[in-house]
């Protein structure tokens, strides 16, 4: 399935021509990565599954941040909605994972739809704070409803085997495979969406919302749709985490989780889809490795990494990579 040598990938910010969704080298890397990781690091599959889930969460944020230009510091609201939906279903007897996961996505999407009307208006800062307000209020709701959610103590439950046969094992193989398949399927969907005319119109709104009505594009409705889709995917990620850990903690809905996913996405590079996977992987693997050494070191080094990425380039790691690639090509062309 190797593609013909593709033309140099164009940075998505420049809309010189219609973006296509042909298979690129990045795709091969992305799709091979989980398989290789599975074979090379069989002892770290639980970490792997959590990286994949976080990457899916970051991917959901990329739709609104990287494409539609909506800044959210409260995306964990939908992650948490999904997690609690999946968790509560299982805790009350509906332990089948796949249907539970679908419910998580649907409920979170519904939550996103309802919230979107508060969010799509106002400046970037206002969006930031309203989404933040939503996540903080929702967290307080989850805490108050502790007879249902377990509050700060959390909610524990047991899942039925996947597809009725594959149980969630201690080594995390099921969790890993399940997360990888769901995340990659979501990736196919998102990739399809952002390369469609709808995705193009989102980017156009990001670049200049005031001009869009002149082209006949309903800005508000487009943003609502994007926000709903994004919330639904965040809910899927939350549902996956709940099911694979068989536990929902109240920090599923929290400001730190919202901020962390934003950092990971920006670190990887927003508006590029792959940035979500790269950022989540880089951040979490570094954090895991460094936290083993010392809690002080992990904070210093992660902080240093973020600072260095900004000092040496723009647009996260992928932004830096693209810049380097472009420079190389220019030199070769000479």
């Amino acid at each position, binding site marked *: *399935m190797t*593609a013909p040598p593709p033309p140099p990938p164009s940075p998505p910010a420049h809309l010189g021509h219609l973006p*296509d*969704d*042909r*298979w690129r080298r990045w*795709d091969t890397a992305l*799709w091979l990565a989980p*398989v290789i990781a*599975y074979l090379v690091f069989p002892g*770290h599959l*639980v*970490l792997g599954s*959590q990286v994949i889930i976080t990457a899916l969460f970051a991917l959901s944020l990329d739709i609104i941040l990287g494409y539609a230009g909506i800044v959210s510091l409260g995306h964990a609201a939908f992650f948490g909605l999904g997690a609690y939906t999946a*968790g509560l279903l*299982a*805790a*009350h*007897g509906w332990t089948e994972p796949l249907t539970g996961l679908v419910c998580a996505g649907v409920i979170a999407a519904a939550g996103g739809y309802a919230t979107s009307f508060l969010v799509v208006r106002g400046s970037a800062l206002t969006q930031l704070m309203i989404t933040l307000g939503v996540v903080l209020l929702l967290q307080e709701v989850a*805490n108050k409803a*502790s*007879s249902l959610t*377990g*509050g*700060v*103590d*959390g*909610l*524990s*439950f*047991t899942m039925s085997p*996947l597809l009725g046969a*594959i149980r969630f*094992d*201690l*080594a*995390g*193989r*099921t969790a*890993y*495979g*399940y997360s*990888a*398949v769901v995340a*990659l399927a979501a990736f*196919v969907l998102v*990739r*399809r969406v952002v390369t469609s005319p709808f995705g193009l119109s989102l980017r156009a709104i990001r670049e200049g919302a005031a001009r869009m009505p002149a082209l006949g594009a309903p800005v508000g409705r487009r943003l609502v749709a994007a926000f709903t889709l994004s919330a639904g995917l965040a809910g899927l990620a939350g549902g996956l*985490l709940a099911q694979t*850990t068989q*536990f929902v*903690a*109240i*920090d599923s809905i929290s400001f*730190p989780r919202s901020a962390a996913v934003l950092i990971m996405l920006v670190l990887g590079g927003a508006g590029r889809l792959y940035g979500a996977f790269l950022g989540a992987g880089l951040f979490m693997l570094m*954090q895991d490795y460094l*936290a*083993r050494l010392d*809690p002080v070191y*992990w904070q210093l080094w992660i902080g240093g990494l973020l600072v260095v990425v900004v000092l040496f380039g723009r647009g996260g790691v992928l932004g830096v990579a693209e810049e380097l690639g472009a420079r190389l090509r220019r030199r070769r062309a000479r």
Partner: protein
Amino acid sequence: MSHPTFLRAAITAVALIGAAASGGCKKSSDEARPASGSASAGAGAGTIKIGMIAAFSGPFADIGKQLQGGIKAYVKQHGDTVAGRKIEILTRDTTGPAAEVAKRLAQELVVQDKVDFLVGFGLTPEALAAAPVATEGKTPMIIMNAATSIITTKSPYIVRFSMTLPQVSAPLGEWAAKNGIKKVSTLVADYGPGKDAEAAFTKTFTAGGGQILESVRSPLQNPEFASYTQRIKDGKPDAVFVFVPAGEQSVAVMKSFQERGLADAGIKLLATGDLLDDHMLPTIGDAALGAISTFHYSIAHDSPENKAFLAAYRDANGADAGQPNFMSVAAYDGMAAIYDVVEKLGGKMDADKAMELLKHMSFTSPRGPISIDPETRDIVQTVYLRKVEKVNGELRSVEQSSFPNLKDPGKEAGGAPPAPPPAGSGSGSAAAPGK
């Protein structure tokens, strides 16, 4: 055009990955359990591995530091070899209040590192999330801090060496009712442990004839207590019962009480020892003088065991580490239990035999005599009534009287054997507030 190519490729890849992972999984789901079993069986000469999980960074970093301090003190005092086997401690940071990280670390420690014990667990969600790992991996799990009643019911491999909140707050209600206190307002942090404490105090206090004027709950993230303190003062109770987690909230509450002059208004302060944590007393300062609390440990406890512990703690952690507190003691005792188990098993580890020994553990800790209730695997200990006084110029919770051999009333109230409770119920279920 190109879409079909991409889609087809994508679907093929999804299918491949799914097949690879689930195929590998069916084969391996049976391997997981023997994996940890074989570690114990094949042990004999190697090291005894202890996996320690707690928060060392983020807002609860102090817990990890205290627990580790207690463990270090024990190892320093008793050496790192038991029954010919070296003790190796693998420390893992949950990087904050993150249950899924705690569970993942537990999984990795059990599956990869094949640890013989899981220890630590500062916060209830960390312990609850990791509980199934202890069960499935057949690894004894020693709770060194988390204090919600239900934890020990979540796995037959869990044993607790810290305390539960009902255990330390119930005696206070009893004492208050007997000592001329008629009307009390309560102020607790609005989460599981806070509600547990409120319920236990209210129950014993009203049973003794006391009256609760008002039950106020403050949000968990709450830097400013002025409104609550003022409200309590305006209600004119004889005393106020307080539980908030040790840390910035305890300091803030004490300062707020001092600023409002609650003591001058004749309102006594009753609290669980969390509020007057030995480690935090110097930070709280003279505002704490005269406060009454019930708790299972004070560094002022007068016994040779405690003197030895304090010396070992300073020795292992340096003078800069400050005072140990109840968390360090629980970690110290947990280590004592592990050493005892390894000694009795002659270095041949077996999870079920270890649990049998742990269930019947009983010794004199720096806090006084402690034992484990074989039914619930929860701690039985003496709870002391203390008053904050100046001893040689330093603030100490000085023990006034004691309530020996207390079990966890949170579980007695439920009366249920340690069967899994109704799914999804939080801590509140066993000790739900009466209103």
